[in-house]
């Protein structure tokens, strides 16, 4: 299999994979980058959405060969040098997420929207975010968070300290 090289979250990576293999599976199963999720495998729910050169793509239907030499940004690479993107602060403060499974995709789609259109209307949000499904029904808060970021509410904003959620329980490891 060919070696494919691209930039992932600011660092060069090389993978040995069939160039037709979906980028999502390469990211998750070969590179251990688990922020983008599997939802449908056919580009219909946007759960796997990440950025290529700043634009949102469905990684499940993007062949890894197509990103050779390009910049791939997943949710893990959105914060730069530990500084959160305003949209991440908005998502926390607006309490957008419920189960959270679709939210990496929602956030990356919203970043792409704002990159291209810093002041989207409700119609713009309907059109661009319409491909990202959320079963918990968080749409109103997604809409609210996007508008708040567009209004600059999170350019200088500090999140309060929060408790820790332990995803694998073991008090000894803490």
């Amino acid at each position: 299999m060919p070696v494919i090289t691209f930039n992932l979250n600011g660092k060069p990576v090389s993978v040995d994979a069939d160039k037709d293999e979906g980028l999502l599976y390469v990211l998750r199963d070969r590179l251990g980058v688990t922020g983008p999720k599997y939802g449908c495998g056919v580009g219909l729910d946007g759960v796997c959405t990440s950025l290529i050169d700043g634009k949102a793509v469905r990684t499940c239907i993007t062949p890894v060969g197509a990103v050779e030499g390009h910049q791939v940004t997943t949710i893990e690479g959105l914060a730069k040098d530990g500084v959160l993107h305003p949209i991440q602060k908005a998502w926390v403060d607006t309490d957008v997420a419920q189960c959270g499974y679709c939210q990496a995709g929602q956030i990356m789609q919203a970043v792409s929207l704002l990159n291209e259109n810093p002041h989207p209307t409700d119609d713009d949000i309907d059109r661009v975010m319409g491909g990202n499904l959320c079963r918990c029904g968080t749409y109103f808060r997604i809409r609210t968070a996007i508008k708040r970021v567009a209004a600059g509410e999170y350019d200088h904003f500090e999140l309060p300290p929060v408790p820790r959620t332990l995803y694998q329980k073991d008090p000894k490891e803490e």
Partner: protein
Amino acid sequence: MSILDKKIERRQVLKTFLVAGPTLAIAGRLGLPDAAEAAIRRTPDLYEHQDFTDIFMQTGAPFYYDLLVNILPNNRVYFEMPRVDVGTGLLTATTMMLADNLDVPFENMDSAQSDAEPIRALGQLTGGSQDVRGLWDPVRVIAAQIRARLTTAASDHWGVSPGTLRTENGYVVAPDGRRLSYGELTAEAAKLGPTVPKSAPQIKKPQNYTLIGKPTSRMNALDIATGKAKYTMDLPIEGALPTVMAVSPAAGGTVKSVDDSEAKKIPGFIAATPIPGMPEMLIPGGVAVTAQTFGIAKKAKNALKIEWNPGPMDHISDAQIDQMMEKIIDKVIVPDTGGGMIDAVFRWPYTNHAPMEPNTAVGHVTKDKAEIWSGLQIPNTAVQNIAQVLGMTQEQVTIHIPLRGGAFGRYLFHDAALQVAEISQRMGKPIKLMYMREEDIKRGRNRTASLNHIRATIVDGQVASFEHRMACPEMDLRHGLGDVITHQAVKYDDDQVGKYFFGQSGSGHIPYNVGWRSPTLQQQLLAIPTGPWRVVYSGQVCSLNEIVMDELARLLGKDEYEFRRELAQSDRHRAVLDKAAHEGQWGRKLPAGVAQGIGLHDEYHSIAVYVMEIDTRGPKPRMTRCTIACDCGYLVNPKGAANQLMGSAHDGFGVVFKAGLHIVNGTTKESNWYDYKWTRMYDSAPEMSVHFLPNNQAEPGGVGEVGVPAATAAAANAWARATGKKPRKFPINEYGA
């Protein structure tokens, strides 16, 4: 004398019944109207005094008080919630409750979810909207006991009376200002063991709460927004191999033969492993396809040539299921005596839960133990069944509970967890199993299809009877929820358990004074897997009752909101109606083709009312505004509760307009989002608001499900008012009126 008069008279006789005896006599009878309510017009209903959440708490109570709370020397608090957070905000709510009652800063908490602990039996069950309510008292009592022990340890240390000490922000504080952190006291407090502490445990008074009631973002919101939150498939389990399932297209079909010659040509393919599943639990067998990545596994699955033995449903399609329901449905009996009536037949389709995270589980089975990871709602039933199929004892099976990407009732069952155990045992390797969306939709445990016949009659301008006849394929409650009812003491009968649940959960409850109330359920077992779907029977039954309430109002020439207000069974209901109508500007002027709809639901000790606006002028109906009022008892987290209620609006919209499955020759026709449609951003209202009634209850009610029937009704009623049509068969986008 009318039927109504007779009923009132009989009640008044009962009211004067006297209890005489040598000891304290009780002169009141539960549930009988007092003099002011003497004109009340409804048959009595046990649900109004004891509902299913009460039964949950009674059967699970001994175990609810078994909570792991560990005060760590670094002054952090480790808490294990014996539940799963599937997006409901439960972990955040219980962590808030504990931190506040312990007098510990919120950010000092470290929270996790307990493994399956079979000792807890029925006390480890997430569902039924009883979780916050069920843990409310246990958390408060245990926090008080911990504070008493820490205070006792501090009093021993300083040699002062414990009564003079207080707790705040993770410290015990003396009157002179000396302070010791909980972390410094934890070792000494632990030495007190089971002895009664000198300082009497005191439950924190609600007026002193600083965190409970404060709008608080989900505790792992930042983890989610940065990609750090870990779901089952994200856990770094060493060596776990990506695996997908191929399952029979028809329900109940089994593997006859597998030809994997084409799959073997795909680089990265590892194995195709037939597994039996657990047919008696309707957990499908099939062929597990393992590869280096999920992408390759999916490709290999599609390259397999599998021959299937026919399933028991192969000759059954929607039309036959409909005929079956028509055959078993109870008859309505009250005739129209000339005052008018609404007589309507409604049909709901099968509906998949379709959480965004499909069926997932990781498993590592060795000769003498099985370790499983899966976000299960009832893990102890899974332990029993997995032990059985592996030929192990329950002690050999460990199940860890990661966070889960949505459930809506789907994870009351444990299909993937059981299958991953079978696969790992056969392959001798750790396996990560994830259904592809196609199998997840085809192999769901659907909300049942149902046929509903409702007749409400009017006598002298008043509603005199309200009959609701529901018939459906039998709902499968064998995941453990049914055991709450039988309590493992009598022979399990799924149909009877379903009927009891129907009556006692709120589904069989009509919260209005509508004379003779008679909801009944008939079920027949089919091989198509079913299961509770957010709010269970009520999502179908109570939503339809609310559609009939609208039609009754219009028949009587009354405003739909005023009519409900007039007949609502209590002032508590009226207050929620008033709040929603006021905040939603009920009756405001809207263009032709746009209308408001209202819906009320009462369950889980909570009441919700939705006022939804639907615009029918475009190619598809759209929700344009939604106002929600809720009395959910003691409100723990206004943000989390509001999120659940807003989410319910989208479920209501989805089932009314968009979502529905078709059964063709035992096979689910739908397979992915292009044909199983759900509410999207462009369906969702740009204006939404949630309004809570001032708290007047001692305990929290449930908020995770109560909104669904109210929202469903509001959506359908708005569409009916906008179009002048009658909703009868769902989803409306497919069937129209």
